[in-house]
């Protein structure tokens, strides 16, 4: 008996010693744990992005630390690939960074019941919320009505075109759906089978389909109450519209894109050399396309396409990304101070520039406008979205079960539609079922 007892004590001691090292150093704290925590704090800040964003953000963090020598900031940044899963697990295990860059849909995905992020209304004495329209802040609420994140920018999708390829085909860049379909046939006849005026991934197809349906109904595909506003027959019509683009040589099939290496469009050799001459992208995304294009190619901002429907242009806009403070933060005030520096402070805003899009903060927008830091391309593209009277974009549209590139319904439906494994009726039915499953949760 004694033997067993001693063995058990030793095992327990060892387990505790081992596991102590695995524990979080920043768990179970609250904003009220220290009255002067921001006076001397150490915080962690994470974000994803490309090299230019990393450089600008690191410089902003360094400047912030010079201005606030009592706050030490540790940074964690990387590319998008695998980023979401890693952060989600951190939020769930209460080991996330103090300040974290999040996507719009993460509020509904990972902050259920306000479990992951603090209510930033509690820090409004540090973060200048008056710089944001209330309607924008309302989009960033968690299910408890708390402000889960501060929107960095507002974005919407529009078209960008490789003007050089269109010139080669002898046609103007498309302004309407009819122009686009005509361009498909012209590209095929004049340039060859492997030239297309547009290239769309499965998610791009879902978004363009939603624009088409919205243009025909005048309502967001999923409204603010979380209701699907289209019928199964309308969804069948929507997928037929997408398939029609492929059938008319407007865009390559999904199999063709897979043959190209299944890479992001800006890394696709056929985009780089001008074979794929059009992009349907977020209005802030042009730099990554422009920088990859082969020399001598001119990349221009288009207009929202007319002729998709008779009710409106069908365009939606949304919060592109946000900064949030995790519930596990030991120093939320220090994190709030850094957050405010990045989104409102003239110095921080100037350093970051438009690396995260055109700022949603009025103060930041003014600072960058006066400094002439907003490029014409980005400004024009953003104006296209804003001027199109955009509709509400539900984060449910981006639910993982729909959007996920491996298991999501968009991938399943548009890949099999493209290959002919699904008829338009089957594809419409699948999408209808998938939306209803998500919205029933």
């Amino acid at each position, binding site marked *: 008996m004694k033997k067993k007892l*001693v063995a058990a004590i030793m095992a327990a001691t060892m387990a505790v010693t081992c596991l102590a090292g695995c524990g979080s150093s920043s768990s179970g704290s609250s904003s009220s744990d220290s009255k002067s925590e921001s006076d001397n704090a150490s915080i962690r800040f994470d974000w994803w992005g490309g090299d230019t964003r990393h450089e600008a953000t690191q410089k902003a963090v360094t400047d912030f630390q010079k201005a606030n020598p009592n706050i030490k900031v540790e940074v964690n940044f990387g590319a998008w690939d695998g980023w979401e899963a890693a952060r989600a697990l951190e939020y*769930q295990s209460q080991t996330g960074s103090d300040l974290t860059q999040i996507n719009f849909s993460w509020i509904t995905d990972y902050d259920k019941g306000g479990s992951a992020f603090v209510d930033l209304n509690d820090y409004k004495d540090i973060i200048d919320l008056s710089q944001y329209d209330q309607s924008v802040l309302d989009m960033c609420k968690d299910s408890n009505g708390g402000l889960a994140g501060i929107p960095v920018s507002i974005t919407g999708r529009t078209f960008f075109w490789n003007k050089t390829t269109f010139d080669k085909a002898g046609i103007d860049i498309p302004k309407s759906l009819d122009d686009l379909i005509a361009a498909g046939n012209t590209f095929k006849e004049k340039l060859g089978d492997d030239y297309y005026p547009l290239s769309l991934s499965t998610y791009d197809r879902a978004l363009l389909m939603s624009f088409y349906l919205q243009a025909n109904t005048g309502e967001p595909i999923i409204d603010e109450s979380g209701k699907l506003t289209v019928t199964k027959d309308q969804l069948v019509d929507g997928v037929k519209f997408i398939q029609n683009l492929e059938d008319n040589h407007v865009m390559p099939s999904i199999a*063709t894109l897979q043959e190209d290496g299944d890479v992001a469009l800006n890394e696709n050799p056929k985009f780089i050399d001008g074979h794929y001459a059009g992009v349907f992208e977020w209005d802030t995304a042009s730099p990554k396309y422009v920088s990859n294009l082969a020399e001598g190619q001119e990349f221009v901002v288009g207009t929202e396409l007319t002729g998709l429907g008779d009710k409106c242009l069908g365009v939606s806009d949304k919060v592109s990304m946000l900064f949030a403070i995790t519930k596990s933060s030991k120093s939320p005030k220090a994190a709030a101070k850094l957050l405010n520096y990045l989104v409102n402070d003239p110095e921080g805003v100037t350093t970051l520039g438009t690396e995260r899009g055109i700022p949603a903060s009025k103060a930041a927008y003014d600072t960058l406008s006066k400094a002439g830091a907003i490029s014409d391309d980005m400004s024009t593209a953003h104006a296209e979205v804003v001027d199109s009277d955009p509709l509400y974009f539900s984060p449910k549209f981006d639910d993982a079960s729909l959007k996920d590139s491996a298991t999501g319904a968009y991938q399943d439906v548009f*890949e099999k539609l493209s290959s002919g494994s699904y008829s338009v009726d089957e594809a419409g039915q699948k999408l209808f079922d998938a939306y209803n499953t998500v919205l029933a949760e």
Partner: protein
Amino acid sequence: MTKGKSFLKANKGFLFILPWLIGFLVFKMYPFASSLFYSFTEYNLFEPGSEFHFTLQNYKDVFINENERNALIVTFKYAFMTVPLKLVFALFIAYILNFKIKGVNFFRTAYYIPSILGGSVAIAVLWKALFKGDGLIHSFFGVFGIDAPNFLSDKHWALFIICLLRVWQFGSAMVIFLAALKGVPQDLYEAASLDGATKTQQFFHVTVPLITPVIFYNLVTQLVQAFQEFNGPYIITQGGPEGSTTLMSLLIYNNAFHTWEMGKASAQAWVLFIILMALTLVAFWSQKHWVYYADEES
């Protein structure tokens, strides 16, 4: 001797294995038991309380749900293509390398190298580059004016290409076969030769029966590896096109770390485990019909 010292002496062995035991309990037994528990729940990592919603649906779905059933079928296809091809190829090359030919050591090393690279990410990336639309294989066919199929975007080809990657890494099985071939007594070949047996007859009637224990060993280990394959389809095709390379392991990963359905992923992992266990048991049971153990004979 003090009490403490005598206790230490009596439990010395136990104390030595204690670190391993703790690791085993914490990192093996606990996840094993908890995954069994979660497999009977609707546990979603981001749905608080879902770990206590009990259900059998996860297990039913493996056989009813279209995607899950497809993954199961694809896994069987993958295993039943890869394992025999790899074993036959490994045995064939080992047989050739068992002859006294010039530079045999170089060839043995060269054939073993792909296995050292193992299931690495770099090799999977290389495979993708070789077989994609403008890759080396396409260019090679192009030289002869042959319009090769789109290996990675054609659902009829993609799985075979993933299989080839593992078949190409036959080195470890080959080395084991080579050792077994060296153990076959030469006098048996001499006797067979005197009886007029051809080389082919000698191979099938002398060599193969004597190395059946090694064939059996390779069969079981390769079967287990094949059912656990992940890197190839994850990196080369991400399970596509149209789910044609979505093996169970990839589906488990997707459910666990894309949609966070831990209950579903746990059930799929247990089904995979049960299938593997059953196949291994069948293999062991079948031994008495085809595996020859010389020591049992005596």
